[in-house]
């Protein structure tokens, strides 16, 4: 009787362990889908959204990971289908250079202002 119980314990623990092994796929899905814009629901990422589009997108990401695609390959695939807009972080290019540079300029400008104010006093 005790033997049976022990076997049962071991079996259930191995099952839990196996379950955890599978879980790392979902972690990667979460990571990728947080970086993707849900195109039909404004202001939400694919991760947040429960729309049909976002749900399918998560299944697709899962499939792609199982096919052995890397994170970057998945982003490239989606950018090819939907354009640059689908990823949250815009690439540095001619169109987006202002976007990247303006905060830096403002930061430096603000710094100069502060330094001047302090030195006047």
């Amino acid at each position, binding site marked *: 009787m005790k033997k049976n119980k022990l076997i049962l314990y071991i079996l259930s623990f191995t099952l839990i362990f196996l379950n955890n092994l599978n879980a790392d796929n979902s972690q990667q899905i979460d990571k990728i889908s947080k970086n993707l814009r849900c*195109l039909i629901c*404004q202001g939400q990422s694919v991760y947040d959204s429960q729309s*049909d589009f976002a749900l*399918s997108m998560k*299944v697709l990401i899962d499939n792609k990971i199982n096919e052995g695609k890397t994170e970057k390959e998945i982003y490239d695939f989606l950018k090819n*289908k939907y354009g640059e807009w689908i990823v949250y972080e815009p690439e540095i290019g001619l169109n987006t250079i202002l976007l990247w540079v303006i905060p830096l300029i403002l930061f430096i400008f603000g710094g100069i202002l502060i330094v001047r104010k302090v030195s006047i006093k």
Partner: protein
Amino acid sequence: MIKKIKFVIIILFFSFIFFVFFKGLDKPNSYLPKKNITEIDTSLVFKNLYDQKEIVLGELISKNSFSIVNIWASWCLPCRDEHEYLLKLKNLNKINVIGINYKDKKSNATKFLSDLGNPYHEVLIDLDGTKSIEFGAIGVPETYLINNKIIVKKYIGPLDQSKLKDIIEIIKNEKK
């Protein structure tokens, strides 16, 4: 004098901001991808709605002529509106019209087609919506005009008279 200049500058600045935002109001909020010319993966395997047979997409899309791929679902109301235009397209007998049934029940889908008429030469199913993503779809209904494995034009939302005209025009121009 300096006060006056400052005042004018501030007024100009605010009117500039007002102008920018005012212009922005008119801009459509929904995003459409700029890149429309994308190649489709012809090795995609679909199941047929009626007999569940597996079909490779490349076999359905003929190489040197136009095909139409329409993504639809029985639960989608705008799909009912565009149905008559799809039937018109089929009656032209010039284009291969392929339907992709998006996240639907088989019984509902077949009833939809028997009630309203079947405009498709082939009806494929996409149960989890992943295959529609391969086309770059964001929802239903969407229609793609395909030539030479390339998406020539993409119509988001239901077809109407002007879109139908557009499709016919594009096909005519290409044939010349």
